[in-house]
């Protein structure tokens, strides 16, 4: 079981993403970099960054850090508070609804990512496949 967020969780997530056939299919024409930003709240007091280099249904590189300049600058940034990430990973909200309800913010070329809503959903589904332990 991997604690979210942590290097072990990131390793496990990328492993599962790269073996996810559905993501391989939905992300096959998508080539971009994306950073997940986990922001602090009452349950988690740090900011954590997971940078993903996505190409054709695979994550070809990834980096994580607790500092913004510890990861490369990505073309898309998806950020939200820790407790909202917990809801996302538990599939209580979906990634687009998360933005529309103000629980998450997305920076980057919006129309482009709207073409990859299925890939985004598959990425979230993958997160829920990781055997995850959350902060108490």
């Amino acid at each position: 079981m991997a604690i979210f967020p942590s290097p072990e969780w990131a390793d496990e997530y990328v492993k599962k993403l790269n073996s996810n056939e559905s993501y391989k299919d939905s992300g096959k024409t998508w080539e971009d970099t994306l950073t997940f930003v986990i922001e602090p709240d009452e349950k988690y007091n740090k900011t954590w960054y997971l940078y993903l280099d996505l190409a054709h249904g695979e994550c070809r590189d990834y980096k994580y850090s607790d500092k913004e300049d510890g990861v490369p600058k990505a073309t898309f940034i998806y950020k939200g508070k820790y407790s909202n990430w917990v809801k996302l990973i538990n599939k209580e909200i979906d990634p687009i609804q998360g933005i529309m309800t103000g629980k998450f913010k997305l920076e980057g070329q919006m129309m482009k990512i709207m073409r990859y809503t299925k890939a985004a959903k598959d990425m979230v589904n993958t997160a829920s496949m990781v055997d995850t332990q959350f902060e108490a």
Partner: protein
Amino acid sequence: MWFFRSPDVIFGADSLSYLNNIDAKRIVIVSDKNIQHAGLIEKVIKNLPDNVEVHTIDDIPVEPDFDDITQHMDGIRSFGPDYFIGVGGGSCMDSAKILFALYERPDISVYDITPIVKLGLRKKSHLIEIPTTSGTGSECSWAAVVSGKNEKRKNELASPEILADYAILDPEMVLSLPLNQTISTAVDAMTHAIESYVSSWSNPYSEALAEKGLFMVSHSIMDVLKKPGSLELRNNVHIGASMAGLSFSNSQIGLAHALGHSLGAVFKMAHGTAVGIFLPHVVSYNSLEVDGKYSILNNLFPEDIKGKNLHDTLIKMFKVINQPLKISDLNITRKSFDDNLNTLIELAEDSTGITMNPVEAGREEIKELFVKSFGD
């Protein structure tokens, strides 16, 4: 947390006269040549307050691309409207939404019209939509479908801020709608109701509107085809279609729309005809997951058309109203279909309709649905 969004809806006979109440000085009407020739723009203008200036755009094509729409921006900016009125089917109403957004925000691109960008519209103008077909639901939705220049893809723009301020549903505006368009738009409306009802974003508001919308359309459409001049029957279908539009606008469309957008982009055809081809197949595909909800919808159809399940009812109804059941019914040859199958699949995979369908569909499932829908 979720939202319910709707324009102010003015409906029923003589609802066009509501236009006389708007506080407007300069109005842009967005429409097309057929609507102009049918005298429907004139009907709208006659109901406007005295002394308003009107700038009419009447050349929106059936499937506009970005340039067809944005070429009017210079004229609109120099006119300086305080209201936009879309008059027509989905293309005219969607074009009005895009022109309204770009007039309000000259600094944005059409690609910024997404649900995840705050646009801050309505600083200079407002938007009214007046449908002349009963089915697209565009008057009540915050989506706009537009083709890319020189590409087959249909871009699905969406933002809660492009939702109209007023939707005016006057049955007089659909009395002369030709029967083939009456059928295809009614099929589109029923598809909106059924897909939104089972969408993964469905909610009590969207479900209630889907149920009532489907009931009103399915109980009146066959009679409308027999008595197209009946204002009462037209009114029922018009309101039902708008309710179905409100329903999907507050939940989402599904797989039949994803496949239909793709088919319509490759082989030009009426949107409702395209989505209707796939609807019974998608209902079968989704059945294991949402059979209970489909049973509720099946019970809403008229008794004499009701089959043992929703799939059978749809087939029966489509036969009665002459909605094609197979792609091969549309003068598309097997060779042409096979030659374009990869493009069809790829376009469908990019559609947002895939994402909120209650059952996941990957490339293989989409291919299978296309092949099944081709028929013999």
